Every structure is written in structure tokens, then in C-alpha cells.
């Protein structure tokens, strides 16, 4: 399914044909919820938090629909909201753990049986990266976004995206080499 891989596809209502907030947001939800949920899931590592963050992003969009100047930008707004929501959850987790780094999520029994060791090893390594590096990797290699859109979604400069991705890959290579 294309939308599960490419969040940026602007499946927003056509500009110039104003829809009610209810129908427009429902249509956006239908088209993008899975991709956005998976984006949040990859960053947060658990399904319940990912669902909450995505629901909150859609509710935020719904509340601000009247103030949205360009409805075709709704998907970009949603993606930024999801990233912000993820950061908020990660901050909260860190504070609850007294500033400890995120621990790699425990794999479900099902995932342990079905998932390959290779994949799990890489995912564990990704989850050990700092939040910002993890975000860049997910946006670049899961969402296939160009650096320009990653920069816009994360509200950082393109050069920062490139350097963060470079550092993330370096750290990832190091972690994977050290893994038993």
C-alpha cells in the first residue's frame, strides 16, 4: 500500500473545493492514518503511544481547520504534529526514568518468532540512537522523504538533516559492529 510507505503523498482535499472539517479530516484520516501510525510506532516503539499521538494530531488539525490557509498542506501539518507528539512522549518517558536513555522496546513473542534476527538487531540499534537521529533515519529510510521535507517537518536546516543522518549511520554501524 503506497500510503503506508510514503506519508508525504498529499492526499488532502483538493484546494478550491472547501469541504467541511468533519469530512475533510475523516478523508485525511482514511488516507494517512496507517502511514502516520507506523511513523510514530517506529519512533516510539509501542503501538498504544503511537495511536494516541496520531489521534491527537488529527484532533489538533480538526480544531484548527478554520485557520488552515491551504488545505493541501494538511498532511505536512499532520506529520509535524506527529513528530512533535512523539518528542513529547519521549521527553515524558525520559523524565519518568530520571533522564535515562530510552531502552529498546521488548519484542513481542509474535515478533520474536516471525521477525528475523537481522531486522531485530538493526531495530534495536536504531532505538538506541538519540531521538533526533532516530527521527531523521525513519523519515529518510522509511518515509523516503527528501532532505528538504525532513528539514521542514523537523523544523531544522537541511545541512543539519544531512549531518544528523551521517552521525546516525556512523553510530548505527558502530553499535551493529559491537553487537554480539
Amino acid at each position, binding site marked *: 500500500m503506497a500510503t503506508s510507505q510514503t506519508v508525504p503523498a498529499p492526499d488532502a482535499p483538493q484546494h478550491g473545493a472547501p469541504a467541511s472539517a468533519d469530512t475533510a479530516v475523516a478523508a485525511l484520516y482514511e488516507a494517512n492514518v496507517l502511514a502516520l501510525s507506523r511513523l510514530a510506532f517506529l519512533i516510539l516503539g509501542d503501538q498504544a*503511544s503511537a495511536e*494516541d499521538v496520531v489521534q491527537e494530531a488529527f*484532533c489538533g488539525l480538526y480544531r484548527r481547520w478554520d485557520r488552515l490557509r491551504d488545505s493541501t498542506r494538511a498532511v505536512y501539518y499532520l506529520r509535524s504534529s506527529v513528530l512533535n507528539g512523539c518528542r513529547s512522549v519521549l521527553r515524558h518517558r525520559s523524565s519518568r526514568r530520571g533522564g535515562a536513555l530510552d*531502552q529498546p522496546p521488548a519484542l513481542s513473542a509474535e515478533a520474536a518468532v516471525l521477525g528475523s534476527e537481522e531486522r531485530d538487531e*538493526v531495530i534495536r540499534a536504531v532505538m538506541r540512537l538519540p531521538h533526533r537521529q532516530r527521527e531523521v533515519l525513519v523519515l529518510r529510510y522509511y518515509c523516503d522523504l527528501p532532505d528538504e521535507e525532513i528539514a521542514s517537518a523537523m523544523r531544522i536546516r537541511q545541512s543539519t538533516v544531512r549531518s544528523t543522518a551521517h552521525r546516525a549511520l556512523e553510530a548505527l*554501524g558502530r553499535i551493529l559492529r559491537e553487537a554480539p
Partner: protein
Amino acid sequence: MTPLEDRVRQALAGKAREFPPEAVPPLRLPARRRRFFSLAYGGGERKEAPASRGGWLVPAAAAVTVAAVIAGSSVVSHVVHQPRGAASSFDADAAAARSHAASWVAAQVSPSTGVSCDPAMCQAIASRGFPSEDLDRVLRGTIYPSSSGVIVATAAVRREFGGYLSSVYAPVIIASFGSGPARVDVRVIAPAGSASYKAAVREDLQARALAGTQLARNPRIDASALVRRQLRAGRVDGRVLVILTALAATSPVSVLAFGDSGPGAGAASPLRSVELARSGEMAGAGHPRSLRAMVALLDAQLAPFRPARIASVRLADGRAVVRVEFAAPSPLGLLAPSNHTGS
């Protein structure tokens, strides 16, 4: 693309598929969206151009209004000649609920938690000694009360956030005052959403029940059947369990009662206070000294295990006991394995 980048791409795609399409929940939009209706604009939103085909609404609404005024005049007349009991009773109930809620928040909620409230309620709480810098005023258009740990849900706050307040933002009530529209609830804000918060509450309950069961079996803790049942059921706040463990390690302790989960709070709200006495030999002649030692130990604790209040009181039967009370809301995850390992 390098081999490492390829591995990352494949791993992320594979992991993402663990979130299956059928796991996506239905869209839950707020029950009410703020709109600016105006009859002058044909019933449409004020921001939009007046709808020409909706122009019939103006005369129709005017006619309905006139008819309603005429038809209702006898009712109005009846009402004005009635005693003003109903309205004044509602106002009195609302004022009493607000006053009790403000007093409870000022006395029970830890200022470090941060409290969201409507401006009038914030003023009432501040007037009872709660630091005003820890109060976050909910004004019209507030998007999300995320900066606080607790929200005081008055009618004005419920209007602002609609059904989303209880379903997503703040699902758990820790105290409730009054009833009907005058009701004031004190709710804990779920910063990561309702599902995560409820999962954390469940985990915390399990951890408290596990620790409580061990304490109920501890031979150095003397307790009634009710107290032991509350311990085993996980009803007792994690901070109380920790201090009980510490006190029992120094000498035998008698747990007389747990209390104060907040008026109107659900069973999910832990019991945050405890009445303690020394038991066994320590309850004899050395009693006052041993109580002072108990108070000193409690007083030496640091947050989050430092009680909000410690008081030595004498019961009706003459026994001297120490009453210990922790601030609301009860923190979650204190007894989680990750906290024991120090991670």
C-alpha cells in the same frame, strides 16, 4: 545506497508492518467544534460569505422567536412568581463544589505537579495558599492542557475541551465535588494520551499489588485483615509501601489504617495516607521516643518519598499514632522494575 542504508530501510519497513492496518483505531474527533454561528449570516459560519440560499433562515428564525416569546410569556410569568429556590440552590451547590475543590487542591496537590484551571478557580486555589506560578489558566482557545499534571474540570473547562477531556486528555478522576452541571472533578492529565496512561495505571497497580502482598506477609508489620486486604489488592500508594518497608526494617510497625484516596475518586486512585504506631515491645514504655524516631526517619526522606504531612495524633482510645500523608496525584511507575535497577 550503502549496504548499511539498505539494511536500515529493510528493517524499518519490516518493523512497520508489525503495526497492521486492522490495528488502526477509528477516528475519535472531539464531540464539539467551536463555531461562530450567526443568524445574520444565514446560520453559516461568520467567517464564510453569507449563504444566499440560506437567507430564509432570518425571517423564519425571527418568526419562531416572536412565537416563542408570546407562547412562553405565561411560563415566564409563572417562573418569576415562583420562589427563586431552584436557581439559587444551583448557584449555592456550584459555589460549594468550587470552594471544596479549591480547598482540596490547595491542601492535597503537590505544587510541583502544576494545576490547570479556569481563571476563577485558579484565583480560588491561589487564595488558599497554592503558589500562583504553578497554576496554568485555561482560557478560551486553549488547545491542550499539557503543561500541568492535574486539571480542575469545572463547567467552563469541560466546555472548552468537550468530551475529549475525559476520553483522551485526563481520563482519571482523583477527587470529585458536587453533582450534575455544578460538579467539579480533579483529573490527572495523561501527557502521552489515554491509552498509554491507562496502561501505566494497570502496570502500577500490578506492581503495588505485588509489593503489597509481600508486605502483608511481613512478620514485622502488624495489621488488621482490612489493611492486609488493601495491601494485597494494590490499593495503597507506592510511596506508602516504600516507607512501610523502610520503617519495618528498623523495628516492628503497626499499620492501623490507610486513607485519603480523594473524595469521589475511583478505585484506581491509590490510598495516600496511613496511620502508624510501633508494635510489639516498642509499643510499651518507650513508645513516645520510638514515635519520634519514626517521625525523624520519615522527615529525612527526599522526594518523591517525602510525605506532604506528618502529624502525631492521639486516638480516642488514648493511643498515640503518626499520621502520614503524601501529596496527590500518586506517581506511577515508582515500583516498576526499571526503577529498582536504576535504569
